[in-house]
């Protein structure tokens, strides 16, 4: 039985000779086991691609739906007035109109 130190002190050539002289016994069914493991891994990859496909398609569909929704939103109109005083005057006029319309309507409903 060789100790670790002895093995560490061996040259590469000596190690190579030792490796060539040893008989390596291949366990029965190893090749078949490796093949089936490769097949199983392939199947798993196929399954994971399928599993990723659904969320990916859902995300894509949602993104497209969002894009269509935001594009269909009414765009921001341009301000009618550049001057806040004019805007204020318009608001005053409109509230006066609302007030008179409400007064008139209330008289009608009485």
């Amino acid at each position, binding site marked *: 039985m060789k100790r670790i130190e002895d093995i560490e002190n061996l040259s590469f050539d000596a190690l190579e000779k030792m490796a060539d002289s040893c008989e390596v016994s291949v366990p029965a069914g190893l090749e078949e086991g490796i093949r089936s493991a490769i097949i199983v891994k392939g199947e798993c990859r196929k399954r994971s691609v399928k599993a990723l496909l659904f969320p990916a398609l859902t995300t894509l569909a949602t993104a497209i739906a*969002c894009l269509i929704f935001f594009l269909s939103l*009414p765009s921001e109109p341009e301000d*009618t007035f550049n001057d*806040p005083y004019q805007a*204020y005057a318009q608001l*005053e006029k409109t509230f006066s*109109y609302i007030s008179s319309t409400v007064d008139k309507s209330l008289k009608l*409903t009485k």
Partner: protein
Amino acid sequence: MKKLVVLAIALSLTVSSFADSLGRKIYNRYSDEKDVSAVYISPSMFKMINRLPEMDMGGQNVELTGLIKSLDGFYLIDSRNSSVNASLKSEMDNILSDGSMELMLEAKEEGETVRIYTKSQGETMTHFVLVASEKEECTVVYLEGQLSREQLNAIIGDMNHQ
């Protein structure tokens, strides 16, 4: 699955936040038509109005000034185009009949109709719509903001107590 639920909730919140842009939709559709006068005041312009000194805003009307400070959207469509009038009136009727807004006032007389709709969150009115239609004219006023009923009533003549 959890992600999908979160996404669906986020999407529905986004949709509902944009669903309120009725005024903008109507404004964009009719503002360029012939014989239609249209006014839009943006939230940015409201901010500018609110920065004006009260003296310059005709300080005697303090209630109006307070009300304007609560607004952040204003759309006005006034049409004297008969085809636009019919379309505008029917579109407003369709939109407002879905029950999302409360009918506050309705008056009819010889082809003239006035309807006022409001939408509230608690004691705060968030939307105010006035649709006045007569034979040759149709007017839609659409206000958005955080209006207190008291403020609005003070301006338009205390409707609730009459």
